[in-house]
């Protein structure tokens, strides 16, 4: 047998190679970094969709339906389902596949579960790398499910082209997305479990929040008369996307075609308004700068003797030198 690298095998549609490479880049191994380098020319084609929201809102069930729909259209779909690791043991139970039974045996679909593993920045970076691998493997869509708990979702939303924030009635009086501070990242708000009582209330509350952020009309009260005027005249080249709200019953597949259409509208908006390229630039810039920063720092430490490093650190601890002047002195020393 001719030896073939994992990246070569991946480009030949070898599913085990894809799976192994996902592990390598998740662990940030040498082999993983090498593969990312080799695969880079093959990336940049997939549409990334983030799906986030509080636990139990129905994200996995919704991802299952979306993937079914896309697969029916002949598209290839990768799913990256992220669940939290235990902060105490570092272990995790990743249960999203339970809701994705319908996708078993579908050659168009590939599901990968991922544990959040500690650090925030690390998760966003590992996610970005795994997405690159899927992208190079030729998936048309990459669905990234995360639990809506804050900063990590905001970072992952920055990675996605389209972000769905999922809400559901019956999880308490509050709108979970507002509580978690992730409403702002929504391109599309999904009110799932629309078969449940309270759906109108959830939707009204969300609309209220949206109107505050993106006023589409102004209401005046003048001599007892109510006057409504548009807040802005919509222009053809208006670069503003106003989030839409969609109702679904993910458990029964209701509202999915409508949601897929809204996603399609958002992609069209991104592509036509130049936003797609702008997002890509930001994303690649972050990757590039992170690599520069990490490598510069690693190289700097490499060239520094451990004695000097320790001595400086103990001077800082003894208050003989401040971290500011110590850093400057070390950098100057290197330049000299």
């Amino acid at each position, binding site marked *: 047998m001719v030896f073939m690298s994992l990246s070569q095998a991946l480009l030949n549609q070898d*599913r085990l190679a894809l799976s192994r490479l996902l592990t390598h880049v998740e662990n940030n191994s040498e082999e993983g970094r090498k593969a990312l380098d080799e695969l880079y020319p093959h990336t940049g084609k997939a549409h990334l969709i983030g799906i986030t929201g509080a636990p139990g809102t129905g994200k996995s069930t919704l991802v299952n339906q979306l993937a079914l729909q896309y697969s029916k259209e002949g598209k290839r779909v990768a799913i990256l389902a992220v669940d939290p690791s*235990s902060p105490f043991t570092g*272990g995790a139970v990743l249960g999203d*596949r339970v809701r994705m*039974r319908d996708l*078993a*045996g579908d050659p168009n679909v590939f599901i990968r579960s991922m544990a959040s593993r500690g650090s925030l920045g690390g998760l966003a970076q590992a996610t970005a790398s795994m997405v690159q691998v899927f992208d190079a493997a030729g998936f048309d869509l990459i669905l990234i499910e995360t639990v809506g708990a804050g900063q990590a979702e905001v970072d992952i939303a920055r990675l996605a082209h389209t972000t769905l924030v999922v809400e559901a009635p019956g999880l308490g009086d509050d709108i979970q997305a507002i509580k978690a501070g992730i409403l702002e990242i929504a391109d599309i708000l999904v009110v799932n479990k629309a078969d449940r009582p309270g759906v109108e209330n959830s939707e009204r509350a969300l609309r209220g929040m949206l109107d505050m952020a993106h006023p589409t009309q102004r209401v005046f009260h003048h001599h007892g008369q109510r006057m409504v005027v548009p807040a802005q005249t919509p222009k053809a080249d208006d670069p503003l996307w106003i989030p839409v709200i969609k109702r679904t019953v993910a458990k029964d597949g209701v509202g999915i075609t409508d949601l897929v259409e809204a996603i399609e509208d958002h992609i069209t908006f991104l592509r036509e308004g130049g936003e797609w390229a702008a997002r890509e630039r930001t994303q690649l810039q972050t990757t590039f700068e992170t690599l520069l920063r990490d490598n510069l720092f690693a190289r700097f430490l490499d060239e520094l003797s451990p004695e000097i490093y320790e001595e400086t650190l103990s001077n800082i601890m003894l208050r003989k030198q401040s971290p500011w002047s110590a850093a400057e002195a070390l950098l100057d020393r290197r330049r000299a």
Partner: protein
Amino acid sequence: MAERKIRVLVAKPGLDGHDRGAKVVARALRDAGMEVIYTGLRQTPEMIAEAALQEDVDVIGISILSGAHMALVPRILELIKANGQEDVKLFLGGIIPDDDIAQLNKMGVTGIYGPGASTEDIVTEIRTAIQKRA
């Protein structure tokens, strides 16, 4: 670089009953620092093998209470081998007669546990099996 996490697929094949035992084991493995992919009830051998491939697991743990182990286990082993994952270790929980245990071990099942087995033993034996492989 972070140490490589042990990834385990926990599945309940066959049509029988509940998955309480599987869930207890899943949580114990999590508490031991492993990453457990839980797939739920009524998994076919095909579903199990496919999930093991997509998740690049080190270990598959299955619970079979129906007595169908002599049909299900060889099929699962055959499928994971066909996928190129012959290095994946299979652990089995259930009520397995002694005669079958010997046969299953010969087929390549790494560990077999009855209803009273301690989760600590399972954790230790998974770790040992993975270390031996590396």
